[in-house]
């Protein structure tokens, strides 16, 4: 999540000052997104420098931190662009287990079936925690948080289904040739025949 676009989105909803933005952010996204106020002020300064927000004229007795900001035309355009741009998700996380499983097919000492089962136990256990957290979430007040949990549960479901698929194909995987080192010619070109 970018603080920049969150602030643009909130300011498009209502022109306000940094301190209130922090509260709005919590109300909109849940308390797990809350960042420190300093980060909000520094981001606001950058947005102002880039012409995406402007300070509203302050009354004389208002303190600097009470200065309200509003979105410029450019700010609104940037916000629209952000909404239209799809986000890509990072899948690299799973690679560590994939590597572990593939290595287990030829390395010993733990059979691939056990490696799979250990992972399955852990993912189910995580899913249990998420399921309990979801049950405790208040659907009326905490819907954004509830949907975040639901997303995590669904990802776990997908991971577990993938484990089932690997399990179903264990025998096929066992037929795979053992990896062998293939030497690539280095340095001087070989003079004789190589095997």
């Amino acid at each position, binding site marked *: 999540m970018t603080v920049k676009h969150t602030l643009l989105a909130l300011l498009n909803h209502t022109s306000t000052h940094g301190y209130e933005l922090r509260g709005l952010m919590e109300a909109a996204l849940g308390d797990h997104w809350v960042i420190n106020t300093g980060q909000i002020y520094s981001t606001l300064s950058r947005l102002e420098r880039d012409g995406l927000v402007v300070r509203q004229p302050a009354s004389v007795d208002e303190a600097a931190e009470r200065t309200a900001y509003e979105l410029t035309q450019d700010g609104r355009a940037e916000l629209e662009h952000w909404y239209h741009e799809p986000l890509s998700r990072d899948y690299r996380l799973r690679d560590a287990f994939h590597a572990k499983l593939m290595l287990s097919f030829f390395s010993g000492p733990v059979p691939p079936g056990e490696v799979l*089962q250990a992972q399955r136990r*852990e993912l*189910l256990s995580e899913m249990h925690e998420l399921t309990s957290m979801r049950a405790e979430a208040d659907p009326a007040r905490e819907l954004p948080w509830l949907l975040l949990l639901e997303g995590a549960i669904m990802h*776990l479901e997908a991971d577990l289904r993938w484990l089932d698929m690997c399990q179903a194909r264990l025998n096929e995987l066992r037929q795979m040739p053992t990896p062998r080192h293939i030497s690539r010619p280095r340095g001087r070109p070989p003079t004789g025949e190589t095997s």
Partner: protein
Amino acid sequence: MSEPTETMIIAEGLTKIYTDGTEVRALDGVDLSVERGEFVAIMGPSGSGKSTLLNLIGTLDVPTAGHVIVEGVDVSTLQGNALADFRRAKIGFVFQLFNLVPILSAVENVMLPLIPYRRQCKFDLEGRARELLDAVGLVERASHLPSQLSGGEQQRVAVARALVNEPAIVLADEPTGNVDTRAGDEVMELLRQVCDDGGRTVVVVTHSPRVAAFADRVYFLKDGAIVDQTRLGGERSLEAVWARLGLA
């Protein structure tokens, strides 16, 4: 948590062989135990023997070999009326296909298991059935027929019916198999409450990790045998959850 646990269900060497032409070994020497007040899931792919195991625990079927012991009673020693009485006193069932009687209203379906024993009941059966419908959020649907209810609602009626005899044990066979994901979660949350608030022992068989995740403990069944079991939750999993949510 520090209360002494008490074993509610024990299966010992449970084996079931069907000999319908060819011999099929549906269960092959299953040992398991379930504590009082525990929520256990038995997980496995289709054909792994899950339903057979649940039917044997629920005394709906007789094992070829082995024993089921419920609260210290070996159920194989019970026969005829004694077995039926035992089942009625101890066990409530929830099935994948709800198994509601189509010509009876929701409240009548909930009353159904005890209607033949209505005279012996020392309580108002209909009153209890309505309370249970209230507990599953369907009291305003009490006079509806099953066909007038959604799949999720029918299964909630089935959960209420499973509780009408105030059983110590509730057994559920793929209880979310015929409802959509959200309705399935509601049914599982209901079963979780049956365990947590009602202090009942719940055993669910399922192929679905989403369903199994509601349980405290999971047995993994494969080709008629228990291949693994695990207790769910704990600090390690919680840490992993925070990391998964990107909040660690």
